């Protein structure tokens, strides 16, 4: 009897329990999502990446000396390794932006045209994803030089090779041309999933062409012929009004508030003041944008910047203007002022029609208007001999460089790229700097250990993995 019982128990136990693999399912996270939602995520990531003043990720506002630090001055002095700054910026672009764009395109294509949509809507979405992809890669190439491209974003290739920066850049222009051709401005696209243009394809078309204009101008010294055709093709299809500016709209609640709000207001910290290098120039010009850029300090109240790179007492210097630190203040990808400055450069190089002075004036006007300056102040400013194109100091690079620097305030990355191409304004490294003023970011420390041979080859190919190495577009 007892033996039978024992056998019975064993039998019963062994006969239970099947369908084992069904347990191993993540029932809390989605297995499929719409491609649109991945685009939303990627767009948010890239807006945060280029906008944040978080010292761990993005210090371009310091490199171009718009701001300087108060107590903890490491980043103002170009320490980019105590915190893994290049790695963080790189991760945002590859992992959070480009990978999600790639996945978005894949899912959108697999899903196909949605019921009730014209086929062109899907084509538009894919074209917009492509434009953002080109934008993301352009930032990567302009930051690092050679980067993984043809072998990137493929988890089956764990050691992706780095491609030549100029070759990538040319391919990006080809891809951008294709995307521009694909756009059907009469049809819809992402709608509310797009926090920039809310799906307005006509505006995306202008942004794509503005990006093309800039990429063409970036190549001016590296490949003049390609630059000329690219700029000429784009010149009449670009952003024509401040209403078409490429702005990414944040919302008031964390974590999707503007990162400037997060780091300057919500953090409760007093890390940044305006830099003397920048504010001195604006004071000298009595620039009408000062009140929109900075607060005053002292008695009587004046605009005064902290000494760049040195320790500065927060209470004694101008702070970032409160309007720019609002939670819902948008990220700026592109604006009319930048377009007009690029056209001014294009005119100087003979790529586009019109005079440089005309575009220059348009650019300054667009900039001051966008910040809320009046027509009278604009007219007075443009009449100032230190501002007027005919009488301002220096070469065209210096004239445009100086005013473009002022107009690109709060857009550290774009200002940094412009500075590297035009070589103006003249910026001087502070006495305690740990390196020269960065002309590129070094490859991430993680690449040393995770993709060492390819990184080393890329470093050698660009002339040394150093912040002082000039990239292919930075000839002077």
């Amino acid at each position: 009897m007892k033996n039978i019982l024992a056998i019975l128990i064993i039998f019963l136990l062994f006969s239970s329990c099947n369908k084992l693999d069904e347990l191993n399912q993540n029932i809390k996270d989605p297995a499929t999502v719409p491609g649109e939602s991945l685009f939303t995520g990627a767009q948010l990531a890239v807006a945060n990446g280029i906008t944040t003043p978080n010292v761990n990720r993005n210090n371009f506002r310091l490199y171009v000396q718009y701001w300087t630090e108060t107590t903890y001055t490491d980043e103002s002095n170009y320490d980019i390794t105590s915190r893994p700054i290049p790695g963080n910026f790189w991760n945002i672009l590859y992992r959070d932006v480009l990978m999600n764009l790639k996945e978005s395109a894949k899912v959108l294509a697999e899903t196909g045209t949605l019921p009730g949509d014209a086929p062109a809507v899907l084509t538009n979405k894919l074209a917009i994803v492509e434009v953002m992809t080109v934008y993301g890669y352009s930032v990567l190439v302009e930051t690092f030089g050679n980067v993984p491209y043809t072998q990137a974003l493929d988890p089956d290739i764990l050691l992706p090779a780095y491609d030549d920066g100029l070759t990538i850049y040319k391919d990006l222009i080809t891809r951008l041309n294709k995307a521009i051709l694909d756009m059907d401005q009469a049809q819809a696209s992402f709608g509310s999933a797009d926090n920039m243009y809310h799906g307005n394809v006509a505006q995306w078309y202008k942004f794509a062409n503005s990006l093309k204009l800039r990429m063409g101008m970036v190549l001016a010294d590296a490949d003049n012929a390609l630059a000329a055709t690219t700029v000429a093709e784009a010149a009449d299809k670009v952003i024509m009004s401040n209403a078409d500016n490429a702005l990414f709209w944040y919302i008031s609640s964390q974590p999707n508030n503007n990162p400037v709000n997060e780091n300057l207001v919500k953090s409760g910290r007093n890390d940044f003041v305006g830099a003397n290098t920048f504010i001195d120039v604006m004071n000298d010009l009595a620039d009408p944008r000062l009140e929109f850029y900075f607060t005053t300090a002292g008695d009587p109240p004046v605009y005064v910047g902290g000494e760049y790179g040195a320790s500065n007492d927060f209470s004694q210097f101008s702070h970032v203007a409160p309007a720019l630190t609002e939670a819902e203040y948008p990220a700026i990808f592109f604006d009319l002022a930048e377009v007009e400055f690029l056209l001014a450069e294009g005119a100087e190089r003979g790529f586009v029609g019109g005079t440089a002075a005309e575009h220059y004036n348009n650019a300054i006007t667009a900039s001051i208007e966008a910040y809320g300056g009046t027509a009278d102040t604009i007219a007075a400013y443009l009449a100032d001999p230190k501002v007027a194109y005919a009488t301002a100091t220096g070469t065209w690079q210096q004239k445009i460089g100086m005013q473009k620097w002022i107009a690109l305030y709060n857009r550290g990355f774009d200002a940094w790229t412009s500075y590297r191409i035009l070589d103006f304004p003249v910026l001087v490294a502070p006495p305690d700097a740990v390196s020269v003023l960065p002309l590129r970011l070094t490859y991430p420390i993680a690449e040393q250990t995770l993709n060492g041979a390819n990184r080393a080859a890329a470093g050698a190919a660009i002339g040394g993995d150093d912040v002082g190495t000039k990239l292919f577009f930075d000839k002077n």
Partner: protein
Amino acid sequence: MRKFTMILALLFFVGLQGVLAQSRDISGVVTSSEDNTPIPGVTVQVKGTTLGTATDVDGKYSLSVPDKYKVIIFSYVGMKPFEMTLGESNTVNISMETNVLYMNEVVVTALGIPREKKSLGYATQEVSGADVNMVKQDNFVNSLQGQIAGLNITTNTNMGGSANVLMRGNKSLTGDNQALFIIDGVPVNNDITNSRAQEQAGTGYDYGNAASDINPEDIESINVLKGSAASALYGSRAANGVIMITTKKGKKTLGTKRSGLGVTFNTSASIGFVDRKTFVDYQDQYGAGYGAYYYGPGDFWYERYINPDGTITVDPTYEGQPSSLWVVTSEDASYGAPFDGRPVYQWDAVDPQSPNYLKTTPWQNAANDPVEFFEKPLTFTNTLSIENAFKNGNYRLSYTNFTQNGLLPNSKLEKNSVMLNGTWNVNDWLTVQGYGNYSINNAKGRNSTGYNDNIMGSMRQWWQTNVDILQQKDMYDLTKRNVTWNYSDPSDAVPIYWDNPYWTRYQNYETDNRNRFIGNVSGTAKITEWLNIFGRFSVDTYSELQEERRAVGSVAGTFGIGTGPDGSLTRPDAESGYMRRDIRYSEYNYDLMANFNKNLSNSFNLKGILGMNIRKTNYSRLISATSGGLSVPELYSLQNSKGPLPLSKELASEVKVLGMYASVSLGFKNYLYLDGTIRRDQSSTLPKDNNAYPYPSVAASFIFSQLTPNAKWLSFGKVRLNYAEVGNSPGFDQLIDNYLILSPINSLTTAVPTTQKNPDLKPENTKSVEGGLEMYFLGRRLGFDLALYNTTTVNQILPLPVSTSTGYNIKIINAGEIKNSGVELALNATPVKTKNFQWNVALNWAANKNEVVSLLDGVDNLQLGRFQGGVTINAMVGQPYGVIYGTDYIYHDASGEKVIDPANGQYLKTSTSDNVIGNVNPDWTGGFMNTFTFKNWSLGFLIDFQKGGDIFSLDLYYGLATGLYEETAYTNDLGNPVRDPITYNTPGDPTSGYASNSGGFVNEGVNPDGNVNTTRIAAANYGAFGYRRGLPNKAFVYDASFVKLRHISLSYNIPAKALAKTFITGITITAVASNVWIMFKNLPHADPESGLGAGNLQGYSTGSLPTTRDFSLNLRFTF
């Protein structure tokens, strides 16, 4: 599984029908033939049954013997077993002989199977419950420190914090390396629920490891199974060794009139004092500031205006107000003005409620430095237990209350635990057993760990030496507001980086609570003389709530839910908030085993097991938090969120493993044993078509001393050898990718996860070879146990960090090999043994050599963690697991000296951060125990030690830069304060040589040309010492070696005679001093054991609590 419980119930009822037979009570005393002293703890058993008891402290026993049985067996370690056939008398007194030839010590092995230790082909080591219970601690695991060769326990100073339990080194590159805890055969969850951010020194709390719920008062003994061969039957989870805990069972107490009912009451109180050697020694000459770049004399001050209405402004709003000197309140460093008694306005002049409101106070070093912040932790432990044994079984019921007021203000740990276990011999073929333990653990105010938002981080790295900590306390007590020393500005009285520390403790405290039940029921049915069937159902389940608070008015810091999978990454900043984590865990085990034991002939014995195990684990976690702050102050609830509630993070996992196993042991003439086991697991976490994996083990032992019975000097000698493989399956959900849902911005916002999973995973496999030699001499007065092992883990399931240009952070792969080889030695000696006095010595020593043999092809480094300060902890091919990477010095080719740039006197450092600058693994560890007993007195002490192992100190990295430590304000080689400016013989002309009144210091090293460096470095500004530009990471890596006098104990048993006329049968008084003396260490200002918490990331110290010396008094009454 319902079927199985039904069967158990059936077994139970079948048993009830057994007829209770007639029996008689036998009692007596067992003494030693050597000196006629009574022997406590002798097992007394009715032959042919499971009925039995043990002798008490006076060697007395009482046993009920059914009439049909005539023989009782007495057995005891080191004694010859004695069989007694019962006669007429009901009193049986026997005298046992010392057995120098046999060692019949029985130990509990895998699956709870008792085995004679001599027959084992693998290493085990035991610790008694009394040893782990001597020092009453918040985590009993800490008590194992130094007690077991090869078991490396790293504790930290966090209140209720986790202990890292590592057996024979790290075997898994990124998986769990913690040893498995088993109570009476039931695996006990030992999860560490700390967040990934906390492990990497981000903001967080150390919530401890779940094994700390085990109540040491209930532990009878602990047996540690060290190698895979010992634990192979447990399957995949036991690759890291097993800590087997046997709980106390009910025994009959003699000498009372209460039918053997035993009552024990134990009470203990302890108090702790900070060991100053583990805290900061502050410099006392300079106060707040980062250097000379403000205003006023020396540029060390804020210039502010006090208006007639009492407001303070930066600008003289009221014309003609004289400016006044204010301390630079916003600066969290002590690189400011020298203390000269000058009257200045300090932080306490800002708040209208302050007694010093708008008054100056002398500029001087604080009367009370932050060490005064610590309280004296008080711990009370009370245990009441009752127990008894009857004819047909036994029971024990115990209740323990543990209360600890922590080192920090407003911190408290409380544990209540009830345990009941019992055995019922239902009839002559069926025995049922049950065990249940319910515990309630409450904690309040655990210390924040890591870099951010940690008061200790402030005191060790960011502090003003002019701030009197007790004044901060007075201000908090007076105002109940956040009146901090660290105002954004005297004119803007909000905190900037640090709150008043008392505000943090009393307002921003966390609480957590864990209710847990661990239990099992089992039945053993004896089918024939040589076969029995054993079935067991066991459960371990808990629910835990962790709540974190930040009060309105605090410094903004990262708080709430971030984007990472566990909600801890890139959290937004908030000045207030509430966050909760709800965790539910349950594990069920169903075991069924057939045991057989048969003598095949006079020489051969065959034992075997055939069994199966079903394990089911459910884990779920919900993290929710407010966003954008709290609307109503002091109301901590989700609906009080200012902003819309962010997405909660939810996780639910279910894992099931089906195991089948068999084992055979063949014994030949009691001196040659051969064991073999095989287990096959089928896991729900592996791909469907490839989810089963078998693994074998084989072990042999040979008691060579049996061959030389006449060698009197050799009491016992055994060699053993084994080989084992253990498979391991991946964790939950490692196969299929899912998307992440992010906080929506106007519409659904998603992302590709940062980890790419792998649908083709295979199980990991650990292979080990172990050999050992165990010898006892001179009647067991001297002995040793030596073990040598080599363990290799291959096919590791590895979250491999990859270049993010692949689109991912991590890819899950099967790759990599880690090798551990080592030596363990346990030495035991009794140098003196007389009738009244005995001296026992035990020494444990172990060395483990660890090497990462390979990773993936083309990949030679695996980054395990990344830390503030730019250092990483890595597994690098060819190196031990856990090397610290960072920047290093440049060394001179010829001399090997550190190279210094003659232009500025600073060390040159590498431009890359992938230099190996440390290794977290100790070279060797051990413990040295001494016990002296004299009559009723017993004195013991334990010294434990670690040689080698490196630790990176973020405290010194920052704290030297900010000028807190005494090392930043000394008299230099010229006899001047080091912080004085550098001066030259001809002012302004460096070529004229340094003047005799020059400050600054000269780094030791050579210039690139090989000449000794003579360039001075100015130390007048922040950053001359510490992290900033001068020093590589290597400068902050310290040797973590230590020698500690871990505890001394003195106990006294009040003689039974003295208590004869009372109702009390015994009183033991024990006094213990623990962590008494750090006899040696190289890490300044901190305990080298003070890491962040348990886990694979060790070797990093930031903002840890100091160590306390604890003194306790324990009284044990038996009734």
